[in-house]
């Protein structure tokens, strides 16, 4: 089978890091990601089935991995070599289409009894992602045993599969997994005042859609977007006000009637969902969140440098929002269909053109795109 495989190679990892710093997405050219012909992955147990990916999305965390920008935190909970791709819609042997729920939690690892978090349905908080009968891997796409969506074949536990309804297109189906992340963040809690979404890449836009349709906060949703197409989509998906990143302090001050002490708002937004995850975005979030407010960290961060004085002084909480529960995933199917989120798939590429695909994904906003995906439907051999 053909696959894009990420190998453990320190020199290539270092080269990717340098290239990625020069231009986002360039890590694909010199880094540990290679297009290879490899054997099909084995089925770990009889509960596992083979899946032939149709579309597989490129996510921000994938880009960070390709560019060598991921945190070393992940090292113990991934296994090499792995085939990336956790946003996947594919064909099962019986001809049905399924979306993968990529979290490799206790049940799919054959761990019994499952951990407390899995027992409570919070598979995203599973304590056993490095244990059980599978190699370490927090998700499909980061585990040596499962393969991933950037290939012509992979394996998945039956508990990881959700059947795609007949009327749903592949483009919509591939958006279900990232949408579930957004749903998880959006529904985490409800507020009365202003909600801010920082960033209007894929996860930012999906979070806006989830907030508007599943939470519908009483106060306005203010979103930041750097590019014009992002601004258009943010407004179309439900943001009441869309501003450029450098304008958000003023926009939130106005919307909340806050005063200002230096760069810090004295009041601010009830909730800030940071869909960027950088030092700058987190610092901005702390400047605009009200005392006692919550910053939801939705975008995957890495190393950040942050002055936490205002967090301490204003009793602000920063809360990580990773992945989803089973319920979130179900809600995501409905949201994708209702908000027509398949429209966010801007371009697809064959595996052969993976460097172009990754570069396009890394420059998506600037090039007027949102989600870039691999299209495996026309690969010569689909095992």
């Amino acid at each position: 089978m053909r696959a894009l495989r990420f190998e453990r190679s320190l020199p290539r990892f270092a080269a990717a890091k340098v290239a990625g710093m020069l231009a986002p997405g360039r890590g694909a050219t010199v880094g540990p990601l290679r297009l290879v012909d490899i054997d099909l992955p084995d089925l770990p147990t009889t509960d596992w089935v083979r899946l032939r990916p149709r579309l597989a999305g490129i996510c921000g965390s994938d880009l960070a991995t390709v560019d060598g920008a991921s945190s070393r935190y992940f090292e113990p909970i991934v296994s090499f070599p792995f085939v990336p791709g956790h946003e996947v819609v594919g064909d099962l042997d019986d001809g049905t289409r399924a979306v993968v729920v990529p979290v490799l939690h206790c049940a799919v690892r054959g761990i019994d009894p499952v951990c407390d978090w899995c027992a409570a349905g919070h598979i995203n908080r599973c304590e056993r992602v490095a244990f059980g009968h599978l190699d370490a891997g927090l998700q499909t796409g980061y585990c040596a045993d499962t393969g991933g969506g950037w290939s012509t074949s992979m394996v998945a536990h039956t508990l990881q599969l959700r059947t795609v309804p007949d009327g749903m297109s592949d483009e919509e189906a591939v958006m279900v997994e990232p949408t579930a992340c957004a749903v998880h963040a959006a529904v985490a809690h409800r507020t009365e005042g202003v909600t801010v979404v920082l960033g209007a890449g894929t996860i930012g836009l999906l979070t806006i859609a989830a907030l508007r349709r599943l939470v519908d906060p009483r106060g306005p949703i203010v979103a930041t977007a750097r590019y014009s197409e992002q601004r258009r989509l943010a407004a179309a998906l439900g943001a009441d006000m869309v501003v450029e990143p450098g304008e958000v302090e003023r926009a939130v001050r106005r919307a909340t009637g806050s005063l200002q002490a230096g760069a810090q708002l004295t009041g601010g937004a009830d909730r800030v969902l940071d869909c960027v995850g950088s030092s700058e975005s987190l610092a901005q979030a702390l400047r605009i969140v009200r005392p006692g407010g919550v910053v939801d960290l939705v975008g995957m961060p890495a190393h950040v440098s942050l002055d936490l004085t205002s967090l301490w002084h204003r009793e602000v909480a920063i809360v990580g929002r990773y992945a989803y529960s089973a319920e979130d995933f179900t809600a995501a199917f409905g949201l994708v269909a209702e908000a027509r989120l398949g429209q966010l798939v801007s371009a697809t590429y064959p595996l052969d053109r993976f460097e172009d695909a990754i570069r396009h994904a890394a420059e998506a906003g600037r090039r007027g795109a949102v989600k870039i995906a691999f299209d495996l439907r026309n690969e010569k051999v689909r095992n």
Partner: protein
Amino acid sequence: MAHRPGFVLEVDRSTPPTLFMRGEGFSLERLPVGSRIVYPSEALPLLNDPEGAIRHALLNPVGTDPLPALLFPGMKLTIAFDDISLPLPPMRAPDVRQRVIEAVLDMAADAGVDDVHLIAALALHRRMTEAELRHALGDRVYDAFAPRGLLYNHDAEDPENLLFIGETPQGEEVEINKRAAESDLLVYVNINLVAMDGGHKSTATGLASYRSLRHHHNVKTMRHSRSFMDQRHSELHSSNWRMGEVLRKAGVKIFQIETTLNNDTFPKPFDFLQKREWEWSAKDRATFVASSRSLARTPDRIKRSIFNSIEAPHNLTGVNAGEIEAVHELTTAKVFEQQLVHVDGQSDILTMGLPYICPYNVNSVMNPILVMCLGLGYFFNLYRNKPLVREGGVLIMSHPTPWAFHPVHHPSYIDFFEQVLADTTDPIEIEKKYEKSFAEDEWYRHLYRTSYAYHGVHPFYMWYWGAHALEHLGGVIIIGGDTKAVRRLGFKPASTLRDALEMAEDVVGRDPSITHLHAPPILVAEVS
């Protein structure tokens, strides 16, 4: 030598290129043959003895007793004066306000008046700094009054120091500075740079609160002021005159002093900017070339600093004192003597070069909203009878229009530009949807009262100021502006005059008639 009046030049093949101001810079442009250029008149002769003329006006006022007869021991005397927005550019010391106020204070001292307050009548403008007050009033006045808290800026958001006077028959609320309203005599010292200034507008606007100002600073009033320079056809004036009547009936006693200046605008070496191009000397041409080249290489911040340091050699041409309406009639006649130019008919396209300064960016930054206000609010309205450009015509103006704001002076402007204009440029919708929230924003109020910020509602007024032009014009093009900022204003950017004229032809048709307003110095076109 007698001054030469303004006139209209028809461009032919021998006409030299025409000067266009471009913010902190300028260029020479070739207008198509057949275009018209409206030139201002030369500066009126100055009064040889300004102090004597001022004293004469105070002792021989129109419609009231001489000032000394109105002064008595134990009285409350308040002297209000125009703020930093006048004159433009700020005048070379001594400022005319200093000359007038020193004369008034001398008479007050002679009469034994010891309860005197001086108030900068700034309405919703930013507060004047100590340096600006010293420049306007002189060190002697400043040092005698400011340290004792007797010289200060009007505060239109201080409920303790505002007094509701009453309403006009149209329901317009009149609320002004309490000290001024409760004084035995309010002396208002004006600088009447244009015909719009002065009259009842001085007190009814300069010393008013937002509650009061909103009755005439709104889209409806602005659209029915055709133009602001023509009191008889200006709803802005009608409203202020009605308010003035309310003040009069309530017993607020006002002694109006109005001064007029000639249009000597630029000092050396920039004096060539107010000369007619064919009369430029070799030295003028060399100065133009050298200054153009060096300005092109100079960072914006330094250019602003250079131009903000310009002090105009304005000279006093007249001073009148006494009853408001009688004084204002004399003043207006004098202003028009300096500024009026007869123009035969409208044109399809009006071009203008916008300078670096307008009433609201003295010692500050000409932000895009002020560019709009200067072009569409002020220059477009420099007419009597009808605009220089026909209805549906195109206005072309040159200005760099940077996406730049003074963070201290114009905080609400930044939000207006980023948030309001990103949504709509329609003045009616802006007024309906956004004005109240900006006007009542506690942060803007705080900055207006304690810092040096224009009031939160001020950018709205700037936009309304251009509402008549926006309704009248078929399009607006800015040459040489920041493309993004120009588009945010709802206008079209062009890189050259030729491009702009071609773009304008899409709106007004081929072979359009073109008129160029050659200002500054300021002129008012009497369009037949």
